[in-house]
């Protein structure tokens, strides 16, 4: 009781989630027979893993890539591929996010980097500013679904029977499907505000593709080497950092040695906000398991829900609601240790369930009042939250439709992992 009150009160007054959880544990310890040293012991154990190192390293690789001037090259590549289509610049926006997904893996970084370029240029081509901002935020959600993805690594770490490579593969088709759905929506259902665009000539196209291949090699290498079993995700992340450094410093030459201290410090700071929640949630889970709470919840849920379909519908509703009020990774860390075993008990494929959870929580990035991508896009567009919310609604519905498809057609998610023998 005192644990729950402490946790909720601290969360409500705006304390960092990790601090609220840690102080909730302190409240629990103070009423029981455990020693206070159990808290640091469990926090330390929660971080004492080689696989977790992949998180700060992928964050660092993404930050380095963002600072290396890849944004314009990614946009040029997407422009060469889809810029000639109807609503061309809107299509380029969507497919730039797909390419960016393999490089940064962060939806917020994607919104910020791509939004700065697309929102003004789409407006210049005749699109309404709020539409451009909403599309940028909506397409950024693809980032954490397509590998390499930090939420995927975290999911694999907090569950026992899902591997990082399997989840990486499982995210590819849903991510691309989401991009196709957004493209189709923009192509057929949006009034074409845009002025006609000039087509790129063949020489420009070849140059754009060539320049785009350099950053694209990174995700191809990372995913390829992990799938081939040559490297672990952590080792692949270190190669990604090395590659991003070489590309930024010596190939594109847009990264200056003087930029590196701030990039390294920022990457560790941002990673630590995730790592400390992981560690405190791992500690909380230890205490909850000791108290038999996950088993009790599981028994309770399984007493009422015996069909995987019903469970998945309930999970989608619950996660969408949670995504409205809690940051995606924090929500995942808190809920997955309880929900994942129930899904397994009901015979749901663990990889399929993992992607459903990640997809749901990433939609939370564009839903008010906590949608981070919505805030970032509005900070660039400056159209006000009310207009942003109105503009994001059609994209939210498109994303919801894709979520329902991947929920009820598991083959879309499990096809690639099955093909590669995971």
């Amino acid at each position, binding site marked *: 009781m005192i644990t729950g009150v402490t946790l909720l009160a*601290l*969360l*409500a*007054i*705006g*304390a*960092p*989630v*990790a*601090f*609220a959880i*840690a*102080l909730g544990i302190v409240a629990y310890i103070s009423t029981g027979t455990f*020693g*206070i*040293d159990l*808290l*640091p*012991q469990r926090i*330390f154990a929660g*971080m*004492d*893993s*080689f696989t*977790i*190192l992949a998180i*700060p*390293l992928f964050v*660092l690789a993404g930050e380095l890539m963002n600072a290396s001037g890849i944004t314009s090259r990614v946009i040029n590549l997407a422009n060469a591929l889809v810029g000639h289509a109807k609503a061309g610049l809107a299509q380029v926006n969507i497919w730039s996010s797909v390419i960016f997904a393999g490089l940064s893996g962060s939806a917020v970084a994607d919104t910020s980097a791509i939004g700065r370029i697309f929102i003004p240029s789409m407006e210049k081509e005749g699109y309404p500013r709020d539409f451009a901002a909403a599309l940028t935020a909506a397409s950024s959600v693809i980032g954490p679904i397509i590998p390499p993805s930090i939420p995927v690594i975290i999911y694999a770490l907090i569950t026992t029977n899902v591997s990082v490579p399997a989840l990486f593969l499982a995210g590819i088709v849903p991510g691309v499907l989401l991009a196709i759905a957004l493209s189709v929506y923009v192509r057929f259902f949006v009034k074409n505000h845009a002025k006609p665009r000039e087509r790129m000539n063949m020489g420009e196209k070849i140059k754009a593709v060539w320049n785009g291949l350099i950053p694209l090699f990174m995700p191809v290498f990372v995913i390829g080497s992990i799938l081939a079993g*040559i*490297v672990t995700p*952590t*080792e692949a*992340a*270190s*190669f990604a*950092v*090395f590659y991003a450094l070489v590309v930024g410093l010596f190939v594109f030459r847009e990264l200056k040695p003087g930029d590196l*201290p*701030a990039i*390294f*410090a920022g*990457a*560790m*700071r*941002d*990673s*630590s*906000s*995730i*790592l*400390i*929640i992981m560690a405190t949630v791992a500690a909380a889970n230890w205490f909850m398991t000791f108290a038999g709470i996950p088993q009790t919840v599981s028994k309770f849920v399984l007493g009422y829900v015996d069909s995987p379909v019903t469970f998945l519908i309930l999970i989608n509703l619950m996660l969408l609601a949670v995504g409205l*009020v*809690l*940051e995606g*990774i*924090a929500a995942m860390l808190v809920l997955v240790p309880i929900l994942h075993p129930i899904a397994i008990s009901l015979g749901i494929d663990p990889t399929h369930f993992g992607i459903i959870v990640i997809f749901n929580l990433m939609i939370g990035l564009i839903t008010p*009042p*906590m949608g981070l991508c919505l805030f970032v896009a509005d900070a660039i567009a400056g159209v006000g939250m009310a207009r942003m919310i109105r503009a994001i609604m059609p994209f939210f519905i498109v994303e919801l439709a894709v979520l329902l498809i991947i929920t009820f057609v598991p083959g879309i998610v499990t096809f690639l992992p099955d093909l590669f023998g995971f």
Partner: protein
Amino acid sequence: MQRTENAYKRLLAGLSGLSILIVFGVVFAGSVSRYLFSSPLQWSEEIAKYAMIYGCMFGVAYAYLQGTQITFSIVVDTIPARIRRKLAIIVDAATLVLGGILAYAGYVFAAKRGGIVASGIGIQMYWAQIAITVGGVCLVIAAILRLASCLNKNSTGGEA
């Protein structure tokens, strides 16, 4: 007070950056050594893990001072600014308490269980486990600076 806070932020930024540099350097060197020279570095995994734990501890205080920790802001966002400033003082006080508990409990933990020798690097685990105490102390200093800054601004009638 602001100058002290800025200097402390720079220190935490430097230590955080150094930690992730060590993590990257060691993991990359270990991977290269394993794949190119077929000679794995026995110590690399442990050094990288413990550098990350230290980095996380510095980074937590740094993120807290920068206001980039993940929070649940839906309730506080609806509250008037004056009350929000008062709640921020309670959050800072709670952070001070948490930092103190982590510093003390981390020391008890390292003292109790730190005698084991890490197999790869051959040092006592105490030196890795004491990172939690270091993190607690960093958080205490950060919370004191934030509280002092809030109280200072409140007493001079400025914005907190």
